[in-house]
């Protein structure tokens, strides 16, 4: 599955879950400046398909990734990071997106901020 096909699938899944996703969003907050494949600015939820072909691994270097994930740990934002180096299948990506969105809903409900 190509990155474009993967992004289309994720866009459909996130939209279906009620998120207003803007594609190819330039995210710049504090010391983090990256391009995200999908981002809902209001819900602060998105997804990023980290592929070498698109040069994402340069933007999401280890230090940037660490800062990004630290903010996720604090609950400030939630981005599904498709970090797999191997082949990504439609079924596996769909299942991962469903799992991520369910977990996100659970966490949001816990703090009363579901979209």
């Amino acid at each position, binding site marked *: 599955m190509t990155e474009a096909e993967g992004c289309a699938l994720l866009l459909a899944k996130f939209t279906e879950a009620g998120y207003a996703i803007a594609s190819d969003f330039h995210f710049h907050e504090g010391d983090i400046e990256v391009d995200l494949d999908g981002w809902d600015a209001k819900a602060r939820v998105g997804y990023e398909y980290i592929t070498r072909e698109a040069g994402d691994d340069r933007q999401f270097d280890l230090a940037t990734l660490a800062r990004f*994930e630290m903010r*996720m*740990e604090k609950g400030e934002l*939630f*981005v*599904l*990071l*498709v*970090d*797999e180096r191997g082949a*990504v299948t439609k079924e*596996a*990506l769909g*299942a*991962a997106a469903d*799992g*991520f969105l369910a*977990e996100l809903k659970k966490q949001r409900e816990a703090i009363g901020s579901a979209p």
Partner: protein
Amino acid sequence: MSWVPAEQVLKTVEWQRQVLAEQQKRIADFNAYHATERQKLEAEQRAAAHDLGQAVLPRLDHPTIAAAAEAIGMVGLPAENVPGQVEARRQWLAGRLQQILTTPDYAQRELLRHPRTGSLTRALAETQEYRGLANQFVATCEEHPRFEQLMAGAWGTSEEKAAWWRYSYWQDRSAAAELVTKTGKPSFSDVRAEYVKGKENVATYDAEIARLRNQIAAGEALEREYAALWDEHHALDARGLEHTRGRIVQHLLGVDASGMTQRLRAASSPFLMLFLRASGLAAKVSYLDGIQRSNVTELQKDLAAQQQKLVNVEQKTRKRWAPMPIANYQKLAEDRRPRYEKRWQRFGKTYQTVYVYDRWDRARYYDDILWWDLMTRGRYDGSYIPEVHSYYQSHPDYQFDPDWKSRQASYAYDDYAPASAGGATNDHGMSEQGGTDDADAAAASVEADGADQSGDVDASGDAADLTSTDAS
């Protein structure tokens, strides 16, 4: 200037290629012929060496060894006390065989290693079976493509730190669920625990299997050692004799043939003719190798040069499709077959002359022996053969006298003659047979001289015509 059209030039190139191919085939045929003949000669050489060794050393006792050493000048041999060494070896073998016999690993070999009922054999089979069972769960886990990653990432333990917002986390989770289903365990923690335990068991069984295999291998090695030593013990005298004979023959063929001939001749030694036969056969094999190698190499070089010329002509002609000046064409079209034929004739004659030679006894008329000259009667230059060349180098004053008959007439030594032979020369049937041989040889020489205007003469009248049969 006259010109030859390109089509004709290319046809001629093709024809010349066929000529070269014919020569290559001839070389291949000759190489095969030489290999076959060489095998026959090697067998003959082995028989000659065997006969020589047997004659020089009929038994392996002190007096016989001393006599042999004296006859052939192997002065150090008696001091080696070969019979004593054989006896010491016999003692050692007897001791070692006894020692092996009482070793439990050997004494109980059937009990331990019988293919079906041996205790070690059965223990090994059982352990392998248990190992197979223990490995089933391990193999099921390891067959899953993501299992290694799950173990490395500590999945199913408190140390697992995969972040749920990563795609890889969900992949790991799916894989863990698949493994739980496949193994029928309640959770991946249980899968992990069972796997770790299984690995430990497999390692234990592997160690036991290795131990049993080593024990079986050690026992089998002992059986092989016993069998080999038993054989040696039972054939010790024959082996000692054969070994010493081998050394004697090696010594005889390793020293200068002239010196050894002089020594044996002066002592009217019964070994003289056997020595000359073995020495001559060894020389023959190396000469034939040299002749074959030299001719084939030379011819191959020539054929390769011709082949390259044809390639150049063809390329040039095809490129411009230009006609060729008649003078150049005549050179190209020259039929080289007669030239090759002449070369094969010359080489074949030399090869065959050496091949058929078997008058080993004639060497005894000479103080300086170069087998090449004896075989060819000094008529062919053999300096391209390494052995001949080195002889010339080490004997700068050497000159060959082809008149062996005069030397025979003035031969001042008494050849060995046992009393039972009625005073006739006993040379194992190899010496000249009086006038008959001379007449045959003379007739052969006349015949060969008549057939060969270049003056080459075969050494023997019964020489097959190698040249006319393409060495095949």
